[in-house]
C-alpha cells in the first residue's frame, strides 16, 4: 500500500514536472537571484560570480539608500497619486460597462467585443493613440472640450495634467477587462432577489444598493486587489506617452516618474542593477502590505452570500 502511494506520488510529480521546472527556472530562481543582487552594487554588465558578488557586497546598503533618498518618496507619491485617481474611475467605468453589457438588447455580442478591443490591443499602440488624443493644440479631447467652451490643459506637456492623462488612457484600456469580470459577477446574482424586491415595491436605487452592490462585492473586491497590484506596476503607458527623445524619462519635471519606471531606469540606463533589484523588492513589500490590508478589511464589506 505504502509502495503504491509512493509510486503514485512520483507519477504525480512527473506530470507536474514540466510546469514545476518552468516555475523554478523562470520565476523562483530569478526572484532568488534578484534578492541576492539587491544586496550588492552589481552594475548589470560585469560577469556574475561569487568573487565579484563578494567585492560588490553592500548588504542592506541599497535599501538604506533608497529609504533615505527623496527621489524614492517622490516617486512613491507619484505612484499613489495615480492610484488615487485611477481606482474610483476604473471601478465606476467597469460597473458601467458591466451594467451596459448585462442588458438584453440586439447586437449585445458586438458591444461586448467592442468594449474588449482596448484590452486586446498592445499598450504601445494604445499609448501612441492617446498621445495624439491628448495633444494640447491638435488633440481630439481638447477639441471636444473647446466645443463646450472649456480651454483644455496641456495634458502630457503639463506637470499638473500629465498623470491625469495617463489615468484616462489606463481607464480606457482596462475597463473592458474589469467590466467583464463584474459582468460575470452580475450574471451570478440570483434573479429571484430582484423578483422579490419588485414584489416588495423596491425602487431602482434600492435594488442597486441593497441587492446588486452587496452581491457584487466579491467581484468588486477581486477587481480592487488586481487594480491596486497593477497600479503599483504602472509602466508601459508612462514610458510610451511621456518619454521623449533627449529628455529624461518620466514626463514634465518628473511628474510621471513611477516605481517600475525608476527600477527600469536604474537597471538599464544607469547600470545600477543591484540598486534596482533592491527597489523592486521594496515595491514587492509595499504591494504585499496593501494586498494584506485589503484582505483584512474585506470582512467589513464583502458579502459572500449569494
Amino acid at each position, binding site marked *: 500500500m505504502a509502495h503504491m502511494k509512493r509510486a503514485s506520488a512520483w507519477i504525480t510529480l512527473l506530470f507536474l514536472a514540466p510546469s514545476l521546472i518552468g516555475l523554478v527556472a523562470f520565476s523562483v530562481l530569478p526572484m532568488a537571484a534578484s534578492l541576492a543582487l539587491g544586496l550588492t552594487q552589481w552594475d548589470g*554588465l560585469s560577469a556574475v560570480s561569487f568573487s565579484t558578488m563578494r567585492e560588490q557586497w553592500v548588504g542592506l546598503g541599497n535599501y538604506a539608500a533608497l529609504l533615505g533618498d527623496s527621489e524614492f518618496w517622490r516617486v512613491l507619491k507619484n505612484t499613489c497619486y495615480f492610484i488615487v485617481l485611477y481606482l474610483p474611475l476604473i471601478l465606476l467605468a467597469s460597473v458601467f460597462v458591466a451594467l451596459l453589457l448585462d442588458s438584453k438588447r440586439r447586437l449585445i455580442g458586438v458591444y461586448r467585443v467592442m468594449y474588449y478591443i482596448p484590452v486586446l490591443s498592445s499598450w504601445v499602440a494604445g499609448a501612441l493613440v492617446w498621445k495624439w488624443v491628448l495633444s*494640447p493644440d491638435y488633440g481630439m479631447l481638447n477639441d471636444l472640450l473647446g466645443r463646450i467652451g472649456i480651454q483644455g490643459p496641456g495634458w502630457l506637456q503639463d506637470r499638473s495634467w500629465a498623470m491625469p492623462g495617463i489615468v484616462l488612457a489606463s481607464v480606457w484600456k482596462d475597463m473592458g477587462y474589469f467590466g467583464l469580470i463584474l459582468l460575470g459577477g452580475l450574471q451570478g446574482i440570483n434573479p429571484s432577489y430582484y423578483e422579490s424586491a419588485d414584489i416588495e415595491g423596491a425602487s431602482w436605487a434600492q435594488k442597486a444598493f441593497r441587492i446588486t452592490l452587496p452581491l457584487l462585492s466579491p467581484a468588486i473586491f477581486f477587481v480592487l486587489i488586481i487594480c491596486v497590484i497593477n497600479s503599483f506596476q504602472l509602466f508601459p503607458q508612462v514610458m510610451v506617452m511621456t518619454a521623449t527623445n533627449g529628455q529624461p524619462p518620466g514626463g514634465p519635471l518628473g511628474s510621471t516618474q513611477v516605481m517600475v519606471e525608476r527600477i527600469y531606469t536604474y537597471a538599464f540606463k544607469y547600470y545600477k542593477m543591484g540598486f534596482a533589484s533592491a527597489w523592486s523588492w521594496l515595491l514587492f513589500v509595499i504591494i504585499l502590505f496593501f494586498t494584506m490590508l485589503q484582505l483584512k478589511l474585506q470582512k467589513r464589506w464583502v458579502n459572500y452570500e449569494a
Partner: protein
Amino acid sequence: MRGRIASIGALALIALSTTAFAQKVNYFNFSGAGDNAPYLESMRKAFEAKNPGIDVNIETVAFADYFTQLQTRVASGTPMDCFELNYENFVTYAKKDVLLDLGPNFKKTGFDTKAISAKALGAFNVDGKQYGLPASFSNVVLFYNKALFDKAKVAYPTDAWTWKDEQSAAEKIRALDKDTYGIFQPVQFWEFYKVVKQNGGSLFSSDGKRFTVDSRQNIDTLTFMTDRLLKSNVMPTQKQCGGMGDWDLFKAGRLGMIVTGIWAFGEFTKDCPFSWDIAVEPGMKAKATHFFSNGIVISKNCANVDAAAKWAKFMSASREAADIRVTAGWELPAITDPQIIAAYSEITPPANRAAVFKSLEYLVTPPVVGQMQELTDILGAQLEAARDGAKTPAQALQDAQKELIAKIKL
C-alpha cells in the same frame, strides 16, 4: 563523363566545406536600422566578397531598445562577437572590462590606423588602449530655410555668425506670422554642454575633477537659450509645437533655422519643398560644434577575434564601406581619404556641404563619465525646469550642481 562527375563532386565538396567551415562573425548594431538597412547589407556583401571564408551575421535593433538588449546579453555572458557603441556609451563599456583591446591585433596584422581620422580614432581609446574603431561620425550644423529668409529680407547665415546675428534673424522671421518661428535649438543636455562652450563656459573644471555647472557663463548661456522660448518666443514652446517634432516643423516651412545633425540631410532632401542650406553653428566667445561617432567594438570573450577584427577594420577603414556610406548619405566615414571627402562634398543639397568639415575645426566631444546616463538625466531635468519657466536658469543650474556633486563620482 566520370571526370566531369568527379569535378562537379569536388567543387560541391569545396563549396560545402567553405560554408561548413566558414568563420562566423555575429554583428549587433543600431545604426543599420530602417532606411540604412540596405546599405549595411551592401557593406556585408562587399566584405564577404573580399573575405571568402568569413560569414557575417548582422542583427539590427532600433536605438531605443538597443542598449537594454545589449546590456542583457553582455551580462548573461553571451555577447555578440562585434557590436556597435556610440561614443557616449563606449566609455562605460570600456571601463567595465567587457571589450577587447585591439592593439595586439593591430600589431599582429600590421594594421595602419593612419587611414582613419585621428580625432575619431582617439574617441575610442581609453587609458591608452584602443577598444574600438570608428565606423562613422557626424556633427551638428545650422540648417536654414532660404524661402523664409528671403521673405523676411534677412541675409543668409554665414560661418562667421554669432549668437547676436542668429537672434536678430530669428526675430525677423518670427515676425512674419504667428505660426512661423525663427529657430529651434532644444534646451536639453546634448545641446547645453556644447552651447556653454560657445560662451566660454564648461560643465567641468579643466582637470575634469569638479563640476562647474552653475558658473556665471553657464547661467548666461541657459538664460539665452530659455529667453528664446519665454521672452522673445522665437522658438516654439512645447505647447506651441502641438505635438509636432522639430524636424516636422522645419519640413513644414514653419522654422527659419534649426540646429540639428547632418543625418537630417536625407530626410530634408526628400521632404522639404523649399530650398535650404547649412552653415557652421554660430558661437559667442568661441565656436563649438558637436562631434558624434559610432564605433565597432569586439567582445572580450569573442572566439573569433581575427575574423571579427577584419570586419571592424573593413567597416571603419575600407574604401568600399566608405563609398557606400557616402553614396547613401549615411553619416560620414571616419577615413581620411581625400577622394572620399571630395565625393561627399559634391553631393547637394546642401550647397554649403563644406560647413560639415569646417565644423570639425571647432568640435567638442561629449563629456564622458562612467555614470553618463545619470548625469544627462540629472542635468536634463533641471534644464527642462528652466525651459518650462518652473525655475530660473540660475536656480536650475545651482540645483543641478548640488545633485551632480551628491550622486556622480568623477
